[in-house]
């Protein structure tokens, strides 16, 4: 029987508001830096510097980019469905922000839980909220009234659905080992050993599915800039396009955060308690680095390869992983 998170622990309203503001501010401060870091790292992976002209070390580059995007005309194609077209980029942003709430930055310290909210259903919330983003992609692609967008949207729908199954199954092993759905409990359960050692297969599957869920290379079929001209984003311009990009980075952060909490021991690390969020961030950035590293290395998969990898390799592997874990959990 799964234990449910401690719902008797209640915080004052102002603390919760302050917490959410702080988390929001920090994550939205990290996002633009992440775009520069990615471009600079990709550059260095290719023997070049990346952006280094705007401001010191090119750190002002996102400011310039966002300024450009905002000042652009919010263009809408004539045969687009206007409300859905505007809704398209908003839903993924919403889903990303909602998912930030459950990232655990530390346990309860001085009466304040260092997390947005410790929902009893924990990781299910992540999947529920994450699925909202698909609607954004689908609606955005369909309502653009363009065949490239529609193709990209259909691809992304098929891809995201296929990979979400393996993603969930990959996490099932961790849930069985920790005996809880709550992310805080799961991190606490990694006191002795981080789950990425006993659940290494699960970790690999989760990361692979994570690449697919965030539409990153080698699974960036929905965008496929070379063939589908940005897929579902084709008809978007200005800040609407910008928010799709923003969401991509937010999803990378969220997936890295979930992976860090589920497999890498979350906030666990040496040092006093106030260093917990720092450890969590460090682990997240290590995973973000892997995201960028893989992007700099692998070419895009063909569509049938993507599907056969998802259904013929990852899904059976994840199921096997769950079975073996279940047997081991029962035996020990």
């Amino acid at each position: 029987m799964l234990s449910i998170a401690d719902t008797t622990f209640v915080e004052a309203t102002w603390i919760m508001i302050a917490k959410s503001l702080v988390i929001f501010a920090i994550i939205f401060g990290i996002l633009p830096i992440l775009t520069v870091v990615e471009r600079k790292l990709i550059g260095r992976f290719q023997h070049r510097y990346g952006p280094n002209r705007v401001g010191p070390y090119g750190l002002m580059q996102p400011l310039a980019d966002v300024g450009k995007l905002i000042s652009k005309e919010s263009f809408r194609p004539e045969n687009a469905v206007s409300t859905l077209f505007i809704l398209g980029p908003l839903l993924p942003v919403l889903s990303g922000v909602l998912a930030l709430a459950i990232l655990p930055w530390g346990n309860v310290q001085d009466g304040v839980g260092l997390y947005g909210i410790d929902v009893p259903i924990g990781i299910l919330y992540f999947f529920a909220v994450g699925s909202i983003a698909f609607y954004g992609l689908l609606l955005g692609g369909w309502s653009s009234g363009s065949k490239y967008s529609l193709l990209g949207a259909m691809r992304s729908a098929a891809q995201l659905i296929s990979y979400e199954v393996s993603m969930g199954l990959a996490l099932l092993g961790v849930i069985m080992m920790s005996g809880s759905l709550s992310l805080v409990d799961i991190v606490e359960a990694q006191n002795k050993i981080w789950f990425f050692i006993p659940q290494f297969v699960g970790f690999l599957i989760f990361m692979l599915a994570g690449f697919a869920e965030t539409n990153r290379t080698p699974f960036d079929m929905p965008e496929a800039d070379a063939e589908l001209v940005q897929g579902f984003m084709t008809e978007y311009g200005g800040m609407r396009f910008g928010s799709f990009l923003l969401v991509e980075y937010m999803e990378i952060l969220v997936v890295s955060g979930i992976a860090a909490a589920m497999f890498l021991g979350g906030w666990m690390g040496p040092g006093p308690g106030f260093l917990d969020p720092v450890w969590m961030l460090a682990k997240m950035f290590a995973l973000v680095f892997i995201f960028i590293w893989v992007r700099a290395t692998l070419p895009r998969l063909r569509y049938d390869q993507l599907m056969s990898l998802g259904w013929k390799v990852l899904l059976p592997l994840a199921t096997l992983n769950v079975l073996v874990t279940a047997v081991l959990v029962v035996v020990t």
Partner: protein
Amino acid sequence: MSADNGQGNGAAPFDPKTAAYLDSIDVVQVQRGPDVGGVGGAYRAFGETLRGLKTTMARLIEGPLTIEYPEEKTPVYPRFRGRHKLHKFEDTGLEKCVGCSLCAAACPADCIRVVAAENIPGERVSAGERYAAVYEINLSRCIFCGYCEIACPFDAITMGHDYEMADYDRSDLIFTKEMLLAEPIERTPLKSEGE
């Protein structure tokens, strides 16, 4: 081999008539890699992925090879043909150019204009009988072939190393004698011996 002309694995073999026809003409056999499927294929793909990751990581550790152009410049070779220079004799200070117009005659782009004048004994400009009263090179037409340098009997014109000559106005690209004679600001690094 011949019955399966480039149809890959698993395709139905041709009937004998078609196969004979395909054998009679010179069909290029399409080279295909072996079909690695199943567990072996997955293992190989995983290994190759790791190898790729290792390769990119090595590039990251090596660091950038970029030459950041406006700040750093690629050194040029000593015989690099950049912007022209006109020369003077170092001891007397007289111009080497005698206004013979051989450079203008040799110029395939027709970008050199020379107007010669007689030297007046009191105020000599060049070492010869005559000197170039006007010497203009239109650098917007120059193709930097170096024929002027070869044509010159007195080594009065040579190709320098300067290549940063972009300008906003076409008329600014017509270099007069004074500009070509002026001691150039050496803005281009020269390759050292053996580099």
